[in-house]
Each structure stands twice: as structure tokens, then as C-alpha cells.
């Protein structure tokens, strides 16, 4: 099953709901090794996305992601704003004008998003950042694609891998972003950006109908 603009809109809508529901949790994670704002930033950013979606309904998945990129870039701030902004913008560019996205296009968009984050933030795997969620997600997506899975399966695998990836940040010592100032004291805490990334990918899978029935 390919995914259209409805899926993209639903993804962003679910993302906003998850960011609002997990706002306090993300703030608490960021308090431990950062500055207590990640949940507030993401919540504010996705509220803006929803507002923009209402004003100018997009016509393609790519347009929806571009709109999200702009809203995130101008409303999230901090490190996460430009990183997510770039990720969504690169994904949008990779999707181009496509009305329906198949598994290959989707995996390509995920790769573009991850590469955008890396290009901007220069973080490597294991630096205890959102890259630790995105990289395994991209790898899992590519595997499913190679195995002939469909778009929904690609998203499901990506979401799963991102969640595992977020958990793997627990013992790491941060080398990028604000948590790196803590040195060894950053170990033993989960990276907030990796958690928000996993939530966003989970929203993408749910919007595509996985695991709870099909998206409207």
C-alpha cells in the first residue's frame, strides 16, 4: 500500500499529539542532561505545524513535510529546531512532487532526513543524539525494502529500530550537543532528542495503519 498526502497529514497530526502527551517526559529527560526545554520546544513546534496545516492544506506528502520543516525551523529553536527542520526539508525534497509514496521512496526520504541531521549536526552514531535513533531506523527501513516489504512495513521497522536506538543511548557519554558538557555525568540518562525522534517515527507508522488498523 502506497502512502498519500492524507498519511502525511495524519503523521503530523499524530506527531503533534505525541509531542503534547510526552511534553513533560521530554522536559524531564532534558533536565537531567540538558536545559529542560526539549519537550516544550517540540510541543510548541508541532502546534505551529498544525496551525499551518489548517491554513494551507498541502497537496502532496512532500508539500506537507516542507510545510512542517518551515514551521519547525521557525518555532522550535534550540538544537532540535534546525536539525528537525533540515530533516523534514531534505525528506520533502527527496519526495519531490510524488502524490503516492512507495516503499523505495519512503526509505529514500528517511535516508535523506537522517543525512540532513548528520550534515547539520556532525554527530556520529554513538554520540548520544537523535542520530542514534535515526541511523538504526534508516538501516532497518533499507533492510525491509531489500526484502520486498511495503511502505507500511518500512515505517514499522523504522519506528521499532528508532525505539531500540533511543534506549541504547542510556549508557553513552554524550559527545555532541549540550549533554556533552556533562562528560561522564551524561551516562545513565536517555537522550531526549533520540526519544522524540522515536516518537515521531512511531507516529509515522501509526498514521500508515501500523499497528492499529489503517489510517483514515
Amino acid at each position, binding site marked *: 500500500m502506497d502512502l498519500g498526502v492524507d498519511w502525511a497529514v495524519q503523521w503530523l497530526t499524530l506527531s503533534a499529539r505525541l509531542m503534547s502527551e510526552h511534553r513533560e517526559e521530554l*522536559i524531564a529527560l532534558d533536565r537531567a542532561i540538558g*536545559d529542560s526545554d526539549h519537550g516544550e520546544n517540540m510541543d510548541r513546534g508541532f502546534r505551529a505545524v498544525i496551525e499551518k496545516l489548517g491554513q494551507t492544506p498541502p497537496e502532496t506528502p512532500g508539500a506537507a513535510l516542507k510545510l512542517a520543516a518551515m514551521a519547525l525551523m521557525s518555532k522550535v*529553536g534550540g*538544537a532540535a529546531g*534546525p*536539525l528537525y527542520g533540515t530533516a523534514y526539508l531534505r525528506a520533502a525534497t527527496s519526495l519531490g512532487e510524488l502524490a503516492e509514496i512507495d516503499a523505495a521512496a519512503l526509505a529514500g526520504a528517511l535516508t535523506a532526513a537522517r543525512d540532513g541531521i548528520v550534515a547539520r549536526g556532525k554527530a556520529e552514531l554513538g554520540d548520544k543524539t537523535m542520530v542514534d535513533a535515526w541511523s538504526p531506523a534508516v538501516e532497518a527501513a533499507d533492510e525491509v525494502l531489500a526484502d520486498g516489504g511495503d511502505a507500511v512495513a518500512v515505517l514499522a521497522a523504522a519506528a521499532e529500530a528508532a525505539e531500540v536506538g533511543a534506549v541504547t543511548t542510556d549508557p553513552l557519554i554524550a*559527545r555532541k550537543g*549540550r549533554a556533552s*558538557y556533562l*562528560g561522564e555525568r551524561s551516562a545513565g540518562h536517555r537522550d531526549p532528542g533520540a526519544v522524540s525522534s522515536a516518537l515521531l517515527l512511531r507516529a509515522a507508522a501509526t498514521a500508515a495503519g501500523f499497528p492499529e488498523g489503517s489510517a483514515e
Partner: protein
Amino acid sequence: MKKLINDPRSVVDESVEGFGMAHADLVDVHTDPIYIVRKGAPVAGKVGLVSGGGSGHEPLHAGFVGHGMLDAAVPGAVFTSPTPDQIIPATAAVDSGAGVIHIVKNYTGDVLNFETAAEMAQAEGISVRSVLVNDDVAVEDSLYTAGRRGVGGTVLVEKIAGAAAERGDSLEAVAGVAEGVVRNVRTMGVALSGCTVPHAGVPSFELAEDEIEIGIGIHGEPGRHRIAMESADGITSRLLEPVLEDLGIKAGEEVLLFVNGMGGTPLSELYIVYRRAARILAERGAKVERSLVGNYVTSLEMQGCSISVLRLDDELTALWDAPVHTPALRWGM
């Protein structure tokens, strides 16, 4: 944690609005997106100076907008760097054609947002130069960190670069002066308490009655390590020694000594720290030629302080002494 606020979501908007009302002779406040511009900007022929960052460090940065210092300040949400859609119009508003300097504290968020804004402003035909402030010796500048943070020294960079811009220096020259300050200033801070971000509602960290955090930044983040409470003199040595070592201050050199309050520590205590710091410098044979004591780069209501030392030369001293007229720093006019 009680705060004199109406709604955590409107803290920055309302505070900046009040600031604009109180200092209407010096600044214009733009809303949506929010940024603060020096009255009468752009000043013909003058290089524009823009700085910004998360809110919660007041008077930094808006308090330093005015003659001889910043042309614009761009406040983000509390402890969150501002976004390009604020930085770009602020940059455009202060460009007289002579170009604009972005003074950016070295945090991933600030760097990325200012970088994006600079690119886009350049695309609109504005010459932009960025200067990165990274004075915090608590953080090692290595492959394993995001590099040293920009903290208290920022206000010295803004004052001195502002004076260079005001006297008519070119874009490259002002950037050079600012970078000269960055090379010669180092800072280290201590927290006796955490602080509470309005939207978070609980303190950034909790310290026992006999604990302090050494090597903190200015965002309520924990420091490099936690130690047992000490005397003011002991804490002062702990902060100042690494600063002097990193700077390599030698006997006979002239310095500016800056004791900065984090927001919740009485001025009287800052002077107790100043006293010991000045003595340590005197013991080393350094000459404290200029000084600054007060709450300039704060972390909300955090208790604690930072000590900055700037190595002076005649040029920097003259620029420091040049007239400045902003809401939070003023002399000579």
C-alpha cells in the same frame, strides 16, 4: 517555585514588552517574530551588531542594545536559542550596507540557528560575519564535546566590539576586535542552587545544603562536578585558577576582572568573591585595570557566580572605556 509571571508561555513576550516600555528612548521592540532594535537603526555607515540566544540570561542580550554596544538582540524562548525567522529580520533591520556581525555563544542550537540565518541573510545581499564566543574553561574544547560554551565573557565581547563598530571600524575590523576579545577572555562558574525554567516548573537540579556545582553553564544545566560547599575564598580560587592557567596570565599583565552574578546571589556576596579574586591576581603580579561586578549574564534566579578575566591591551582598554548607553550598561554619556 513561585514566579512573578502570568503564564509560562507568555513570559518572554510580556517581559520584552515591559522592557520596551521602560526603555522606549533606547530601543524598538518588534513582535511576531520578536526582536529588539536600537532606536534609529541602522546607523548610517556603521557595522551592525546582532546577538541573541535563549531568554533567561537578562540583562543579556536586550539590555545591551544601544549606543556603543548591540544594534539588535534576538531572544529565544527561555534557554532556547532563537530561530532564523527572528534573526533574519533583525539582521536586515540593522544593516546600513556596512554589513552585520552575529555574536553567537557556542551552543549547538545557537550555532545552527545563526548559521542558517546568516546564510539566508547573505542570500538577501547582506554581508554577515559570525563571531563565536567560547570562554568557558569548565568545558574541554575537544572532539568529545560540542566545544567550550559561551558564557559570561559574552558581555565583554559585545561591549568592546560595539565600541569598535561605533567608532566606524569595517566589518572585518570589528570581527577582528571581537575575535581578539574571545581569544583573551576565559570564564568559570559555580552554582549554589539550580533554577526553575517557567514551563518546566521544577528546578533544573537539586543540591543538598552542603553541595555546590562547579563548572556550570548558564542554562541551569548541571556542572562538571559536584563538590562539598566551601568558603567564598575557596570557591574563588577554584574558579579563578583554571581561568588564569588557561589564559596564561603572567606577572605584569593588565586584566579586566568580571565577577558575574547568576541572578539569585546578593551583590554583597559578589564583592566578597571579587575581593579574593583581586588578591589572587595581585599575588600573581597581574594588574586589575578594569572591573565589572553585578548580574549581567544570569540563569534566571540561580544562586552562584562566574568569574571572567580578560587580558587587556591599550586598544581593548580604550574600547572598554568608550561611551556606552544601553539599558544595562552605561557610561560616558
